[in-house]
């Protein structure tokens, strides 16, 4: 009897469903104990397929048997675990199954955690961070030993980043604790299923793949507003009326935007014209748990007509009644767009319905390319990288918190996670050394070590170190955050926490300033006890929109190439809105269109500075790296570069002197001659050092119960970087930071490849004004990076202005004095 019990068959029938073929296959895979990756389009009952074998197995449980953890479900999003909890409850209740389900995330309350620890549920739903935390306790050995299945949901979102490395390590640990369990991976459609199967299985034994095809193709359109398209920026104001009309015509809609700031902005704009008082909500990761859960519930119950959201609502969440998706701003990747579209009409046989709202001409082109790609069934490729070293350090410390470990065993365990299959022993030794005492060159302070080496293995040195580690588990490095405490009015003493805001933003506020948060305009009063205090602002006062960190999404290589191709071929423009076609024609008349090969550089004089725009179409990372290297060379040549700014499509450099010959600034040898001098002082390397230092546990983001006092004024990690570089340049962390910056922030390999391909094929146009194609990039100016020397120049300018003012004052005083005493 290897099939689905009668009870389940009839439950499916009662729902008006039938058990799909691949859902049966998963039951078979469970019985054969096979690691399996299920790839299916969104909305096909994929999650249920993952849980079905466990539900069937658990249904046979003896009543009164000892509570043991049977199935562990790992999700990338907290919201998803709540949703799955709701959805699992239906079959469990309907069939009266003797199954308990528990949720364990950062939102789980302390008493629930205690209860879960004493009485494990049959099925535990968790996130990678909470799982790692569970694994850091010595009791983990007992807790996980009876585990039968691990289900990794939305696997495609894990597989290619640090969070994926982190999850892979946690899974490797689980395999040691419960060697007989199997792994199920659930994934949306991906370009390379064999790489994902490798990632899911332990090193050397890839998971089996079940791939489900054949969903109805989505119906995608680009919104053509009556108003004019803005030439740059990402503000959807111009289309807000059309967006509102679309919401009105739909039963229920989700409006996806790309950053948290944009959710707040668009939400405000929609409410300004919301004459019918439609229930429109907003959703993003900075809102408090309460608010998020309330919004989730009201979408699920159908009370909400529309919700403006970031990617926080992107994955898995099953809301049947959504019949329209709006994507505001560029999609940035085909897979991401598909994921978002999949939110509507959550059934395999009905097409999803989505409208794309690009906010500038290049975004419109990007949208058109994405639509073409989806129709042709193409996907972005994923880039599987080697496991990150800082994550490995965190894992080693985590392992030490749970009990003694031997180096040899720990290395074998780490290597059994696919991203770390090639970790050299020499590097592993350095990492353990670093975890132990900071990899200190002067062995003077080893009594503050984190790990203690004993004859029976390594262990955590003190309970404080363990406590400190547990508070900092994770791979998402965030800026310091403050709670936002809302008071009904200025005199009230009873405030409520409504979310969190980055400290950086608060620094720019003065008491009395207004800002937008959680969809309302608040007046800032001050900061107390790590919380920003605010109350609703009087109507009609112009607010600021907070900057939330981590908003930038990288453009996929695949889409970038598509955009470039579409621009170069005017016979493919028919997919574009009329306005955009006109804009491109204008570009072609005034300057020229970029070709599908080579590089177009445009130079002109604008508001007192010389500007060159390099239209590379190679993404932000390549443009960033190119900007760093080119400005160095320009500085050497006396061209006095001032600033540079980047978009996904172009690099813009401003300078005091005109650039005559752009090609000579873009030769392949800038990678050698400019790079060496640049790399050590680069802000990019410092930036990756900052992240790595936090993940590896060098500095921390959350102090236990800390509040900031004047004595603790933070000193930046940059200082540490400088000092380490001066006295211990071979330090392992510096090496990791450099490697990571080259790969993740700058993508030097891709830059090298591109420079090589454009040699001899660089067209430098000198123009009287900024061309249509350059204008979107010009809009970035003012948000750019100032070049090293220019900072000094700025200070000199401020200082000279000052001297001039003083001189003027002196003259004034003199005149006044002589007037008073003739």
């Amino acid at each position: 009897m290897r099939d689905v019990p009668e009870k389940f068959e009839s439950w499916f029938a009662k729902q008006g469903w039938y058990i799909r073929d691949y859902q049966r296959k998963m039951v078979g895979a469970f019985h054969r104990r096979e690691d399996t990756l299920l790839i299916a389009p969104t909305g096909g009952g994929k999650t249920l397929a993952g849980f079905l074998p466990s539900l069937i197995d658990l249904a046979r449980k003896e009543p009164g048997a000892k509570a043991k953890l049977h199935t562990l479900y790992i999700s990338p999003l907290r919201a998803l675990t709540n949703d799955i909890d709701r959805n699992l409850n239906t079959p469990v209740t309907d069939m009266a199954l003797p199954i308990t389900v528990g949720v364990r995330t950062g939102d789980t309350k302390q008493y629930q955690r205690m209860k879960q620890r004493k009485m494990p549920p049959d099925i535990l739903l968790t996130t990678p961070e909470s799982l790692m935390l569970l694994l850091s306790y010595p009791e983990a050995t007992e807790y996980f030993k009876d585990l039968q299945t691990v289900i990794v949901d939305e696997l495609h979102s894990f597989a290619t980043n640090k969070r994926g490395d982190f999850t892979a390590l946690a899974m490797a640990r689980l395999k040691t604790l419960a060697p007989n369990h199997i792994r199920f991976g659930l994934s949306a459609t991906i370009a390379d299923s064999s790489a994902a199967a490798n990632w899911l299985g332990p090193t050397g034994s890839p998971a089996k793949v079940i791939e489900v095809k054949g969903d109805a193709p989505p119906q995608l359109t680009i919104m053509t507003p009556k108003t004019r398209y803005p030439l740059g920026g990402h503000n959807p104001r111009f289309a807000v009326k059309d967006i509102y009309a679309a919401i009105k015509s739909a039963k229920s809609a989700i409006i996806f935007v790309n950053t948290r700031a944009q959710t707040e902005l668009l939400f405000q704009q929609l409410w300004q014209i919301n004459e019918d008082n439609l229930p429109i909500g907003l959703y993003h990761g900075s809102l408090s748990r309460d608010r998020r859960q309330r919004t989730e519930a009201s979408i699920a119950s159908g009370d909400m007509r529309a919700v403006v959201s970031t990617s926080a609502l992107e994955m898995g969440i099953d809301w049947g009644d959504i019949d329209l998706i709006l994507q505001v701003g560029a999609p940035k990747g085909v897979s991401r767009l598909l994921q978002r579209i999949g939110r509507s009409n959550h059934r395999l046989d009905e097409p999803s319905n989505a409208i794309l709202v690009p906010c500038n001409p290049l975004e419109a082109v990007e949208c058109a390319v994405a639509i073409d790609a989806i129709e042709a069934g193409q996907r972005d490729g994923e880039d599987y990288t080697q496991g990150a070293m800082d994550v490995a350090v965190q894992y080693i410390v985590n392992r030490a918190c749970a009990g003694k470990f031997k180096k040899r065993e720990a290395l074998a365990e780490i290597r059994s996670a696919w991203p770390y299959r090639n970790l050299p022993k020499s590097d592993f030794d350095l990492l353990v050394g670093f975890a132990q005492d900071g990899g200190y060159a002067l062995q003077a302070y080893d009594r503050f070590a984190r790990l203690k080496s004993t004859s029976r293995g390594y262990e955590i040195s003190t309970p404080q170190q363990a406590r400190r580690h547990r508070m900092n588990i994770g791979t998402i490095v965030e800026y310091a955050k403050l709670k936002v405490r809302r008071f009904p009015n200025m005199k009230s003493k009873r405030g409520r926490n409504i979310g969190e805001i980055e400290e950086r933003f608060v620094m720019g506020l003065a008491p009395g300033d207004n800002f937008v948060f959680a969809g309302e305009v608040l007046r800032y009063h001050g900061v107390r006890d790590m919380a920003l205090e605010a109350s609703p602002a009087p109507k009609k006062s112009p607010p600021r929109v907070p900057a939330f960190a981590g908003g930038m999404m990288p453009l996929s290589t695949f889409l970038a190439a598509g955009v470039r191709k579409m621009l170069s071929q005017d016979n493919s423009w028919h997919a574009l809105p009329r306005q955009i076609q006109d804009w491109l024609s204008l570009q072609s008349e005034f300057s020229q269109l970029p070709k599908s090969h080579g590089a177009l550089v445009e130079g002109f004089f604008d508001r007192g500075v010389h500007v060159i725009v390099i239209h590379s179409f190679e993404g932000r990372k390549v443009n960033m790296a190119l900007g760093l290297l080119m400005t160095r060379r320009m500085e050497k040549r006396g061209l006095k570069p001032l600033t540079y700014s980047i978009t996904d499509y172009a690099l813009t450099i401003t300078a005091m002197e005109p650039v005559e010959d752009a090609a000579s600034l873009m030769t392949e040898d800038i990678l050698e001659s400019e790079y060496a001098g640049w790399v050590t002082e680069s802000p990019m390397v410092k930036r990756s050092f900052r992240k790595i230092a936090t993940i590896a546990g060098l500095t921390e983001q959350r102090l236990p119960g800390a509040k900031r006092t004047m004595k603790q004024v933070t000193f930046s990690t940059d200082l540490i970087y400088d000092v380490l570089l001066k006295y211990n340049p071979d330090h392992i962390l510096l090496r990791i930071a450099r490697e990571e910056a080259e790969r993740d922030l700058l993508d030097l390999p891709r830059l090298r490849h591109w420079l090589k391909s454009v040699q001899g094929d660089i067209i430098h146009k000198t123009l009287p004004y900024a061309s249509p194609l350059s204008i979107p990039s010009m809009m970035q100016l003012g948000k750019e990076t100032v070049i090293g020397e220019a900072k000094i120049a700025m200070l000199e300018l401020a200082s000279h202005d000052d001297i001039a003012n003083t001189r003027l004052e002196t003259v004034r005083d003199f005149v006044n004095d002589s007037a008073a005493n003739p």
Partner: protein
Amino acid sequence: MTQQQILKTRAGDVIMDGRKTAFLPDSKTLLVADMHFEKGSYLRQVGRSALPAFDTFDTIERLWAIAQDYNPERIIALGDSFHDIEADTRLSPQSAARLNELAATHCEIIWVLGNHDPDIPRAVKGAREDHVQLGGFLLTHHPYEPQEGVNICGHYHPKAKISMRAGSVTAPCFAISNDRIIMPSFGTYTGGLFINHPDFTKAIPGLSSYAMAYKDQIFGISVDS
């Protein structure tokens, strides 16, 4: 390229150095504030950082270099020279020796005591003082109302930010009024407090200008009233 800037005060000249120190030419005195020696090792000790701590070493070497340029008769440290009361137990003998060597070859070192360092490690030579009156200059850790003349103090780690269309620069600074100068913090691992922070309105009521120390250069900037 200004490395120093002379500030004329009612108590005499003060040379502000871009390396975050000040020199009083009349008395040949070098002033330095908030060195926070052993802050790195303190963070390691309390488990807040696993970082190699080279900060004490770096701070001392920078002080040496400046002392060699000015050849002062005395160096006065305006408090919080050591990060905490237990710095004594962590200060390496080499660092203590290097400080004493500075005193032996160059000049006298006077330690004004601050809130972080009510006492100075025994291994370190030099007088311990609550404050020092030097001509018209009253040298303290916390701000102190001078009867006449000028008060020079530390404690607040002032920093400032210049924002322009092109971007912004943040750097430690000297905060200046008619009768008070608050020195920037000198220690390698010390952070700063923006001079528009409310604490400064009390600490330096008549703030008239500030001088930013950036990459060893100094930039004087006046405050718009």
